[in-house]
């Protein structure tokens, strides 16, 4: 009897994969059908749990699954194409198209198949996929995976996925358990799931409401922190755009309407560097860091040419300077349009600047914005250091305070003027590198920033870099605080009106220069 049992068990073990193969092959064919058939197939493949479905489903999600006219599925991997089921080489076919419904189903199916994958990243993704495609069928699977899981981050996500799946379980105790765990998560997605569950479970309304209240309390803190971050981010962009102007306009007193075009040239330098590096794989990730000094040099050179060629003939004539730099700005814009075309140029963000970073307390900040805030502070630091601690900075301050005496002391004031203007322009160019990550690289890039830049410099106090910084961050945060209830358009208007009133009260801005320099 025992022998018979063993034989039967063995037979079953052998037969099971055979049947599974049968089903896998017949099922897989459905992947080349219409969107409805695809969704059904993906769900059934996920439920089947056959590991051979994994490469097929991954390929489907990544647009690497192809089909021949007769419906045979083909798999593309690194440029070579093989028959998906047989594995024999084949000629390329037509890519299998999917839609968002299929994508959502794929996420759930891949989640089931990858829950015990060897790579931590894959397991994390699987847990997220199961969280979103919650289903009571996933509960045993998640429980098993949790028992084996060691990585704390993956465990946390798996627990959330399990809670989400329990929320739709038949057993009420399980549902209560799910609610409890989700109430501790503090995420907007969990809130949404709970609200959905509330409609389906009138009996559980009380615990669900309590859970939502708990989540809301945490969400509020989180949103406040995120608003401040957004304000800092907007402020850092204003700061970068205005910093160059704080030197050319604030320190030298040149009304430089071509300032925006310097920013634009910096952004185009980024495009050029990126395109130059594209052919060399090991250089490509460095294109953005290399663009910073490159943009500084290019725009500084344009600045020197502009100052020596035109502006120096117009010192002391602000109206003419304004008109002339305005014209130069338009010439630069049109020149770039002729050289590069009217279309926007694409700047690829490096991987370390994409996506979000999770800070403690579930606060998420976007990476590119975080880098730009840091970059703005570094540029500000360098500018302050250059003015404070270098010979060039000393000469610059001397010329600004008293040109004649500086000249009698042997300072070549003309050369200092040119270098100061180049310095301001170069900083504008570096701002362009950062702006290429958040705005369009088009010939019009600069026009959007020129008014904001003047606004920041005047608000902060002409001639004061610290004022520029405080001004920029204040305006950024005020703007973002106003935005939720006034809307983006009104918030901007409100800020402008606020500045007008402020300038009425304090014409010299936040940080008015005192002493002899102020009388210039």
């Amino acid at each position: 009897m025992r022998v018979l049992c063993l034989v039967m068990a063995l037979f079953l073990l052998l037969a099971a994969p055979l049947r599974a193969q049968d089903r896998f092959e017949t099922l897989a064919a459905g992947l080349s059908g219409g969107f409805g058939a695809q969704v059904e197939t993906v769900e059934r493949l996920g439920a089947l749990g056959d590991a051979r479905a994994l490469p097929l489903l991954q390929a489907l999600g990544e647009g690497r699954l192809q089909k021949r006219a007769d419906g045979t599925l083909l798999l593309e991997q690194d440029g070579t194409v093989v028959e998906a089921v047989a594995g024999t080489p084949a000629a390329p076919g037509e890519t299998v198209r999917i839609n968002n419904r299929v994508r959502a189903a794929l996420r759930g199916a891949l989640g089931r198949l990858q829950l015990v994958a060897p790579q931590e990243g894959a397991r994390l993704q699987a847990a997220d996929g199961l969280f979103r495609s919650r289903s009571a069928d996933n509960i045993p699977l998640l429980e098993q995976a949790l028992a084996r899981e060691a990585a704390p981050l993956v465990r946390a996500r798996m627990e959330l996925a399990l809670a989400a799946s329990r929320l739709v379980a038949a057993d009420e105790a399980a549902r209560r358990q799910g609610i409890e765990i989700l109430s501790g998560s503090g995420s907007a997605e969990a809130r949404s799931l709970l609200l959905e569950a509330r409609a389906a479970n009138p009996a559980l309304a009380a615990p669900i409401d309590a859970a939502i209240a708990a989540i809301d309390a945490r969400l509020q803190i989180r949103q406040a922190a995120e608003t401040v971050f957004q304000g800092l981010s907007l402020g850092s962009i204003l700061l970068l755009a205005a910093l160059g102007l704080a030197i050319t306009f604030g320190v030298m007193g040149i009304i430089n309407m071509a300032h925006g075009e310097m920013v634009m040239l910096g952004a185009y330098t980024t495009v050029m560097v990126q395109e130059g590096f594209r052919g060399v794989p090991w250089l490509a990730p460095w294109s953005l860091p290399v663009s910073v000094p490159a943009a500084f040099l290019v725009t500084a050179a344009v600045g020197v040419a502009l100052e020596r060629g035109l502006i120096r003939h117009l010192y002391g004539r602000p109206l003419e300077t304004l008109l002339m730099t305005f014209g130069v700005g338009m010439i630069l814009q049109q020149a770039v349009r002729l050289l590069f075309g009217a279309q926007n140029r694409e700047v690829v963000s490096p991987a370390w600047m994409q996506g979000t970073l999770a800070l403690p307390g579930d606060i998420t900040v976007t990476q590119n914005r975080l880098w730009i805030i840091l970059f703005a502070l570094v540029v500000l630091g360098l500018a302050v250091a250059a003015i404070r601690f270098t010979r060039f900075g000393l000469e610059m301050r001397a010329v600004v305070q008293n040109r004649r005496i500086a000249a009698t002391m042997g300072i070549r004031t003309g050369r200092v003027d040119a270098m100061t203007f180049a310095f301001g322009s170069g900083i504008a160019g570096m701002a362009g590198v950062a702006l290429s990550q958040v705005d369009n690289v088009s010939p019009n890039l600069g026009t959007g920033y020129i008014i904001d830049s003047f606004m920041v410099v005047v608000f902060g106090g002409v001639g004061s870099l610290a004022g520029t910084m405080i001004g920029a961050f204040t305006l950024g945060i005020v703007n973002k605080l106003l935005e939720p209830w006034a809307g983006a358009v009104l918030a901007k208007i409100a800020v402008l009106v606020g500045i007008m009133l402020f300038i009425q009260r304090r014409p010299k801005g936040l940080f008015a220069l005192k002493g002899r320099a102020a009388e210039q």
Partner: protein
Amino acid sequence: MIHRHPFSRRALLGGAAGALALPALRPALAQNSGPIRVGVLHSLSGTMAISETALRDTVLMMVEDQNRKGGILGRKLEAVVVDPASNWPLFAEKARELLQVHKVDVTFGCWTSVSRKSVLPVFEELNGLLFYPVQYEGEEQSRNVFYTGAAPNQQAIPAVDYLMSDDGGSARRIALLGTDYVYPRTTNRILRAFLNSKGIADADILEEYTPFGHSDWQGIVSRVKTFASQGKKTAIVSTINGDANVPFYRELGNQGIKAEDIPSVAFSVGEEELAGIDTKPLVGHLAAWNYFMSVEGPANAEFKQMWASYIKNPKRVTNDPMEATYTGFRMWAQAVTQARTTAVDAVRTAMYGQKVAAPSGYTEQMWENHHLSKPVMIGEIQEDGQFSIVHKTADAIRAENWSPFIPENANRAKAG
């Protein structure tokens, strides 16, 4: 050849133009000898240059093509290009220049609704003929304009309908994001009435506007995220115009909003706009148009071939407004051939009922309401910057330029 006395037609129009205006009226009259003059009124500089330059190229391509075929009525075509520089009042001046100084027989031009509104009185006063190739908010019908882009019922409404369908993700909460000017505001007004009629309450609709060229989308995208956390499937409907789309999509990607969770459908983002974006994080987001470059069929193959050999740059794409320009030009050429004159009134009458096998793969017809019947297509953004068509209508749909979802139009329908 039909020769008509210039002023008899004027009298027929019943225009109350005074003697002072008479010299100004002469240029609008058709001349039946010499080259046929085709005006091109698209911005070649300023913010709209990015979109409109390609339309100028399309008209020039069509003129060249028509001349290769021997012109129309045995006369050659001659393009007159002016640059209104994205400056709305300048559009009106340039339109007047085209009609009065260059004496053009037909004009292809405008992109934004505000530029069209600016030239409209000029074309009506001088009885000119304008072909407008861009999807717009409707609520307009001039006897001097043929609208070859989509009206709201040929783009916006079917797109939202799709988002609410099973295939589109059964959205029950809609965020309407737009640039702050007439087209998004009117479209969203129509959409709100449509959504209400479908049982979606005002509490489930978020409406946000931003200035032209807005680049800081952090706040709005996080607000959409919060809006989406209310237990109902949420979708974004974007009437964001121009290059503000690039930072918007970048922010969507950076904040990790996936199309499977919160799909977005855009009405002003085509192949040309995607050329400046890294589209990898955007795969699955949608756009609604009446034509995509990826449409398969002989008419589109011919159009793409023609464009490629004209522009000689493999990177340049075709898009919906270009297709509308192409279709409008073909129709106009047919109408002139049929009318045997370029006289505006005769061409207008001949335009009604003209059919063209358009690159969209459908036969499009010009109706008496000056609008085309067009198919509606929903496309998904792909990694290569093209669209994969996930939904299209069985037939070309007739335009309702007076939307039934705007209450004031009820009287208009009665009045006829």
